[in-house]
């Protein structure tokens, strides 16, 4: 009887621990929100600053949502910044023919580069880390070469920088990606491939097609981010999308997404991480913290979040 109650209390404690760890990123986000709200005397969640947080959040969240599929596969995509820059550049050029071509060009360019990433990774068996790094070199170089400076688009295109449109776009991507990830076979296939591609193949999953689709989707959404970046600044330059790959990677890691892929990859991590990044950035800026300190804080928090939320028990080998 005594042993039973001891086991029960141990099980309860481990259940609570598990729950805490699973929701640590979310709790961390809440904590960051409360701390900065107090430190900035309520300015953080003021109506105007909320729009700042949204603007910081928007591009990273759009990409991070689709990035979940690549992370679920246990892969990385280091070319997202280059795709954003290249698709913005191509879209800016297309505006010289017709402004109606801007969105389709951005989307198609992103999709095409994403397809290239997917094809190299899935069918040509190139490691995603290296393959996407190579693609990133190629398209950064091409963007600089083609732009030969910067290219502007008509200021009228700023009409697409409206919050209503961005919220609608974000909601659309959120619904599509969430449904695909949580409720459709594709999301499950991605996680299954990430857990064990051989086992997934044995279960009838088309591993190559799943990989190809995931990278292509990330490419397409990067095209969309490129479009919104372009219409916001009305200019595409060789710096467009610079270090965006690190922003997205940091966001998903902040959200507690494991690099190993598979079933532990939770979709919500992308949203929580993107939001946490945006709140952190905005909060530190509101407090007047200088750039050097901001970087240290980000580094420490990244390590702390992963140290606390990382599931070592199921990770097996940690590399």
């Amino acid at each position, binding site marked *: 009887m005594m042993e039973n109650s001891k086991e029960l209390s141990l099980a309860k404690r481990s259940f609570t621990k598990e729950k805490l760890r699973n929701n640590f990123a979310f709790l961390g986000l809440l904590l960051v929100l409360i701390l900065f709200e107090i430190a900035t005397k309520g300015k953080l969640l003021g109506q105007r600053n909320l729009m700042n947080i949204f603007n910081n959040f928007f591009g990273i969240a759009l990409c991070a949502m689709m990035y979940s599929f690549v992370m679920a596969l246990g892969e990385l995509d280091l070319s997202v910044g280059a795709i954003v820059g290249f698709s913005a550049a191509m879209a800016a050029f297309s505006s010289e023919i017709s402004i109606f071509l801007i969105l389709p060009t951005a989307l198609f360019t992103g999709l095409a580069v994403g397809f290239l990433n997917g094809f190299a990774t899935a069918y040509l068996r*190139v490691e995603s880390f290296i393959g996407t790094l190579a693609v990133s*070199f*190629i398209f950064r170089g091409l963007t600089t070469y083609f732009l030969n400076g910067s290219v502007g688009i008509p200021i009228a295109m700023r009409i697409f920088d409206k919050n209503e449109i961005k919220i609608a776009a974000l909601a659309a991507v959120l619904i599509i990606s969430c449904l695909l990830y949580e409720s459709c076979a594709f999301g499950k296939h991605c996680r299954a491939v990430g857990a064990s591609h051989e086992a997934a193949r044995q279960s009838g999953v088309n591993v190559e097609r799943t990989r190809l689709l995931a990278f292509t989707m990330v490419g397409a959404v990067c095209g969309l981010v490129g479009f919104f970046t372009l219409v916001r600044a009305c200019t595409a330059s060789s710096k467009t999308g610079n*270090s965006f790959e690190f922003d997205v990677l940091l966001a998903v890691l902040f959200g507690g997404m494991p690099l190993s892929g598979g079933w532990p990859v939770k979709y919500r991590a992308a949203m929580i991480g993107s939001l946490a990044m945006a709140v952190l950035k905005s909060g530190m800026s509101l407090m007047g913290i200088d750039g*050097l300190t901001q*970087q240290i804080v980000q580094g420490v928090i*990244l390590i702390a979040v992963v140290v606390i939320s990382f599931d070592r028990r199921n990770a097996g080998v*940690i590399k």
Partner: protein
Amino acid sequence: MKKIVINLLKTLSLPVIVYLVFLVICFERFSNWNCVYTIFLQSIIPTITAYAVAYGNICGIFDFTIGSRLVISGVVGGLLAAEYGMAGMILGALVSAVVVSAITGILNWILRIPSLVLTMGLTMIFEIVGTKLAGHYGFVQIDTRYAVLGSSPNIVIVFIISAVLFYFIVNHTVFSYHMRAVGSNETIAKNSGIKTDVVKWKSFLYGGIFIGIAAILTLSQSGSVGAQTSLGSVTIVFKPLISILLALVLQRICNLTFGIFIAQFSLNIIFIGLIAAGLPDTFQNVVLGVFLLAVMILFQNADRLEALRARTKVQNKMASV
């Protein structure tokens, strides 16, 4: 012996072919000894940096901190050079590189989180440490008296010593076998009694020695080392990483130590060749990306290509019958 010579010739054919291509494109600029020698000298520091990256790579660890550790080491070396001369620079750079690398390794051991995440977070912190150490001007400069190691022939001697040291550690120590075991399957390595955490920590430590050497040479060659922020130091690791990947492709015909150098040398021929051909420097990135992608595709699909070749052979035989 004959096999070794053939393999050596095969390995050397890579830079020779690349060189010949550019010699045809721009004969006047490429057909001088100074040009080849400069390419050789330019390959030294990236090769030694690649040796530092290689330890983690063999163990299957990805390390973003290489660049930021190199900056810290260079800055400390530069600061101590002003106080204690060349000895201060060498000791300062080496000791700081090893200490920071040991700290990175210990954190990797005790925190038990993926190295990619840990090193990304640490890079953000190390970059600021380097910036703070560099002080008001954001960079440290050494007196030219202490920069003798950066010019020929001293840099070549340091390179040869480094290559021999790397070759010895990677090929003739028990640690190298342990490293490979951890890299290929950590679980099996652990079950075989290898202290995998110690091996990984040591890989950071040994890598640190080469970071220190690379920092000394960078400081000696450029005369200064500047701090970097906003993950700018991460890009330092990319090009050495590419040479390691090319070296892995060449591994069938030559060892890693020589392979890394040959890969780096070939890449530098391309870079200088593009400049000599008068092409804009933006092409360097495009060519580097295409080259890397092509090599990786060939490397990863060698078995398929072999099978295809065999099938074609059989088909040809059948046709002739």
